[in-house]
């Protein structure tokens, strides 16, 4: 089997690679969205601690 035959997927290239591509997108989205949520919560926390410190000073 050569590579161009492999990528052609017997004429179903768009459907097969579209599906695997979509899977890659969904997995990447999940990781990125989770990281963004962690970051935004951290930022929010740092903000409140800074405010609290400014108040107590």
């Amino acid at each position, binding site marked *: 089997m050569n590579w161009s035959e*492999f990528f052609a*997927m*017997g*004429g*179903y290239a*768009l*459907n*097969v690679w*579209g*599906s*695997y591509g*979509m*899977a890659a997108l*969904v*997995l990447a*989205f*999940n*990781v990125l*969205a*989770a*990281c963004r*949520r*962690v970051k935004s*919560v*951290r930022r*929010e*926390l*740092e903000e*409140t*601690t800074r405010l609290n410190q400014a108040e107590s000073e």
Partner: protein
Amino acid sequence: MLFHKYASPKVFYALAGQLIPWFAVATLILLGYGLYQGLFVAPPDYQQGESVRIMFIHVPAAWMSMFVYMVMASAGAIGLIWNMRLADMAATASAPIGASFTLLALVTGSLWGKPMWGTWWAWDARLTSELLLFFLYLGFMALQAAIDEPRRAARAGALLALVGMVNIPVIHFSVQWWNTLHQPASVSSINKIGTPAIHPSMLAPLLIMAVAFTVFFATVLLMRMRAEILHRERHTGWVAELVKP
């Protein structure tokens, strides 16, 4: 009690932080092995040709869409009955992950349906009930986002998730109860010679991908739960200690 110890958000936060890298590595190994098996080792189908490889994404994604929903509804129920904050957070964190797997199942199903059935979409029982599942996830997220008070948001979400549980057996049995375009189960059904109606060379990548997706779900769930814990425990001493510069 051990269970109660790990159910404390503070202890769980630290435990999850230790588990995430291991789960991430396991996901990568399983995904790599599953993709190799599915794209290179498994043979083309005698009827469907190479398009059958969509199955190794589509079927695990569809299984996950239902499994994550059951996790979400169970966590919601535990939070509702025993007033357990960590369970509420698990339900909230599950929803976007489950919705994304449902979308993946719908899109790959469409990409597979076009060459095999001649249509991207049909309003048949399996497809329609899976679409309803997607809307249940979106409804759960919208409902929780609309309520500011965390306890009330968790309660409302859990009730919605539990009512929506009715849809899970409907999805599963839809191919038996109604005359659908969608094919019936091959993995759980046994053929005339007493083996699963799917060949081991195709069953192996299918199961490996399903395990890979499950471990991936666990990884992202723990990441999201850690964020939820920090957010909801932000007024406690231990969180203040944690973010202290």
